[in-house]
C-alpha cells in the first residue's frame, strides 16, 4: 500500500539516531566563518567529485546498433543485446531482431546505450555502420515523430526503474447502464389504521418516523436514513490510457505480462489546464476494471532489508504496533484487523488511474481512484463479519 501513504519523507529515512556516526544536527544555512564548517563542506564536495570522476564506458560486445525506419517512425535492431529488451520493443523477423517505437529508441540513444544509423533502404544490416548515416541525438529528435510530453513521462519513469509498455486497448464496448424504474406502493387504509393504533411505524423521512419506531442501535438508524443514492451512470470519455507500468520485477515477461501496477494517462496541460470531466475519469476507470479481470491480490511481501541500514522510524513504529496487537484479546485483534482493512478499502477506492500532467516540461503525477464509500464487493470484509453493513462508519460492536 506504499503508494497510498501520505508523503512523509522523514519516515522513510533510516533512523539515524540508531547509528553512531552520521548523527544529524541542526541544519546550517549560512557560512559561520569557522574552519569546522568549511572542512565538512569540503569533504562532502570531494566525495561527490571523486564519484563523478571515474570513467564510464560501454563494452564493445555490448554495442547496440539500430537502423532508423523513417516510413514507420520506428527503429529496427538486428542484434538486440543487453537487458533493455525485457519490456522494450516488439520481436520482428526470423533472425531475432526487435523493433522499437520512436519513444523507446529516443530513450536508448539519449542514455548513450545505442547508436542509430539512417540507411537508404539498400544497406545490408551487417555493414550499416560503414554505409549508413550515423544519427546524432538532435538529428534523431528532428526525425522521430514523438509526443514530447509522453516521452518525458516515459523517460522519467524508466530512469526510476519502472517497466513500461504502451497501452493497447482490448476493449470492445462497455455495456451501458440501464436504470431500473422503481414503482412505489401507496400505503392503504389498513396500514394507516395500524399506524394510528401505534402498532406500525411510519416510513423513513416521515415526520412521525422516529416517534413510531423502536430502535435498539444507531446502525439501524443510519440504515433507515439512507437515500440509496445510485452512482452516476456510465458514459464515454475523451481520454486515452498511454502506458501500462509495472514496478521493477525481475521475472517480467513481455509475452505474458501480469496485470499492470499502474495505468498512466499522459496529459499535456500547457494549453488546456481544465481538470478532466467526471465522464472522462469514469470511462478510464471502467476501461481499467474491465481489462483487469482478476484484480491483483494486494499481498505485499515484507520488503527485503538492506542489512547495513538501521530500521526506519516507520518500521519501528509498525513493529511496536504489531507487538502491542499480539497481546490483545483474540476478538479485539479480529476487530482491529477488520477496521484496518476497511480503512484501506476507503482510502484506496476500487480502481486507480494515474494522470501524468505535463505543463511546459514540468511533470506532476496524480492518482485518481474510484471512491468506494459504500464498500461494495469487499470480500475480505464479508469474510470477517458477514452480516455487518460495512459502509456504516459508526461502530457498534
Amino acid at each position, binding site marked *: 500500500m506504499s503508494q497510498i501513504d501520505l508523503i512523509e519523507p522523514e519516515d522513510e529515512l533510516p533512523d539515524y539516531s540508531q547509528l553512531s556516526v552520521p548523527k544529524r544536527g541542526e541544519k546550517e544555512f549560512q557560512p559561520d566563518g569557522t574552519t569546522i564548517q568549511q572542512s565538512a563542506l569540503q569533504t562532502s564536495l570531494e566525495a561527490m567529485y571523486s564519484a563523478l570522476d571515474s570513467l564510464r564506458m560501454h563494452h564493445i560486445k555490448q554495442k547496440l546498433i539500430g537502423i532508423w525506419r523513417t516510413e514507420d517512425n520506428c527503429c529496427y535492431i538486428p542484434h538486440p543485446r543487453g537487458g533493455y529488451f525485457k519490456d522494450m520493443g516488439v520481436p520482428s523477423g526470423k533472425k531475432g531482431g526487435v523493433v522499437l517505437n520512436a519513444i523507446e529508441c529516443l530513450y536508448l540513444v539519449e542514455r548513450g546505450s545505442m547508436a542509430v544509423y539512417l540507411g537508404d533502404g539498400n544497406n545490408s544490416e551487417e555493414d550499416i555502420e560503414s554505409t549508413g548515416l550515423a544519427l546524432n541525438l538532435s538529428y534523431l529528435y528532428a526525425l522521430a515523430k514523438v509526443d514530447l510530453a509522453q516521452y518525458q513521462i516515459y523517460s522519467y519513469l524508466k530512469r526510476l526503474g*519502472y517497466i513500461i509498455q504502451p497501452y493497447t486497448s482490448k476493449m470492445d464496448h462497455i455495456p451501458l447502464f440501464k436504470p431500473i424504474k422503481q414503482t412505489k406502493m401507496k400505503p392503504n387504509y389498513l396500514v394507516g389504521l395500524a399506524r394510528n393504533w401505534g402498532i406500525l411505524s411510519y416510513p423513513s423521512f416521515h415526520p412521525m418516523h422516529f416517534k413510531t419506531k423502536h430502535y435498539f442501535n444507531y446502525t439501524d438508524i443510519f440504515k433507515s436514513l439512507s437515500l440509496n443514492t445510485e452512482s452516476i451512470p456510465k458514459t464515454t470519455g475523451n481520454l486515452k490510457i498511454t502506458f501500462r507500468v509495472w514496478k521493477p520485477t525481475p521475472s517480467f515477461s513481455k509475452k505474458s505480462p501480469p496485470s499492470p501496477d499502474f495505468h498512466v494517462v499522459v496529459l499535456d496541460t500547457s494549453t488546456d489546464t481544465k481538470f478532466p470531466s467526471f465522464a472522462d475519469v469514469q470511462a478510464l476507470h471502467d476501461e481499467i476494471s474491465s481489462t483487469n479481470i482478476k484484480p491483483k491480490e494486494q499481498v505485499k511481501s515484507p520488503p527485503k532489508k538492506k542489512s547495513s541500514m538501521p530500521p526506519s522510524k516507520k518500521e519501528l513504529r509498525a513493529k511496536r504496533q504489531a507487538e502491542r496487537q499480539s497481546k490483545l484479546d483474540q476478538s479485539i485483534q479480529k476487530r482491529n484487523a477488520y477496521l484496518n482493512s476497511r480503512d484501506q478499502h476507503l482510502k484506496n477506492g476500487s480502481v486507480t488511474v494515474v494522470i501524468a500532467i505535463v505543463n511546459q516540461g514540468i511533470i506532476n503525477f496524480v492518482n485518481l481512484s474510484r471512491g468506494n464509500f459504500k464498500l461494495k464487493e469487499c470480500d475480505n470484509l464479508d469474510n470477517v463479519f458477514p452480516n455487518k453493513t460495512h459502509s456504516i462508519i459508526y461502530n457498534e460492536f
Partner: protein
Amino acid sequence: MGKRNNRQLNKIYSRPLPITLTSQHYGITLPTLYPHNPISWIWFMIRYCQINVFYPVPESQTFEVHWENGIFKVVDEESMMKLWQMGFFGKGVLSRSEPTWKERVLARKKENVEAKDVAMEDITKMRREERKLFKSSRAQLQELELKDRQGIITAEEVEQLKALSETVQVLRKKGRVSGRSKSSIVERDSDGEDTDSEEEEDWEELAQLEYLQLQLVETFFLKFALNVINIPGIASTFDLFKTCCYQYDNNQSIQPNNKFIIDYVVYHHFRSLGWCVRSGIKFGTDFLLYKRGPPFTHAEYCVLVMKPDEQEYDWFQMAAKARVIGTVKKIFVLTYVGCPSPEEFKELVSQCEKDDTGLAIGDLLQQYKVSEILYRRWAPSRTRD
C-alpha cells in the same frame, strides 16, 4: 490516562445522533437472534411484539431553532450543548466549534483553574507558547554553539550553553509527546461544574452571549431526516427546503442543480453512512468527514462537491487544494452529484407541494446520483518497491 480520557469522552458523546434509543430509555434490548436456532426466533418475535405493544416509543428531545437574518440559530444553552454532543451539529459563534465561550469566561474568572476546566482553545494557546519558548531557546543555543566553534566563548557562557542544551532537550521531548499522543484532547468532566459552586455564585448571572449557528444543510438534516427541530415561522419540511434553496436561487424557481440541494445530497449521503460531517471551509473544500467527531480523531477526508457536467476547476486549483489537504494528512475526495432532468425535477417538486410529509422530498433527493473520486498525489520514486 489515555484510557480514562476516552471513557469519559465516550460517556459524553455516547449518541451520534440526537435520537433516543429504546434500549437507552428503558434499558431493554432485543434478544440475540441465532440463525440456526428456531427457539431464538420465537423468543425474538415474542419480545419484539411485547416491546411494540407495551412500550411507547421514547420521545427524542425537540430543539428550538430560530431563523433570523439568514441564519439558523440555537440560543437555548442546553439545546446548544445537546446538539453539539449528539452528532456535532453547529458552531458556537464565539468559540472555535464547540460552544464553550461561557465556560471559558467562567474558568478565567476563577482563582485556581484546574486542568479539567481548560477548554480546547486554551490548550492550543498553551501549546503555542511552549513552541515559542522552544524556538527562542534553540536560537540562543545555536548562537552559543557558534561562539564555541569560533573559540570566542567565555566561561560564563559555557555554563549557559550547558544549561540551555538541557532545556532544549527537555522541550523537544515534550513537544514530541504532546504532539503525538492525544493529550490535546481535554478531559472535561460533565458534572465538574457543580463542585465549585461557591466561587461560581458571583458569576452565575453571566449572560450567555453565544449562540449556536447551524449550517443550512445541518438544519435541513435535523428537520427532514430526524425531525428533532422546530423552527417558528417555518412549519413544514418543504417550506424549510424552499427557504434553503432560495439562499442560492433568488429567482423563486428552484433549479435541479441548486447549490443547496447538491450540498445536501452529499451531506446526507455521508451522514447516512455514519460519518460526522462538518464544514471544510478551512481547507478550501465543502465538507470534512470525521470518524466519530472532532474530540476523538482528526478528520480523515476532505470532500469537494463537484458537478459532473461542468468543469469548474483547473489543475492548478486542484493541485493547490490537494497540497493543503495532503499536508494535514487528509484524503481529498471529489464528490460528483448528478442531477435529475429539469422535467423530472419539476414534477417531483410539484409532488412535494401536494404531499407535506417529507416523503416526497425523499423521493426527490433519491433521484440525485452520487459518485466519488479520490485525488491523491503520486510520487513514483516512492512506490517502486
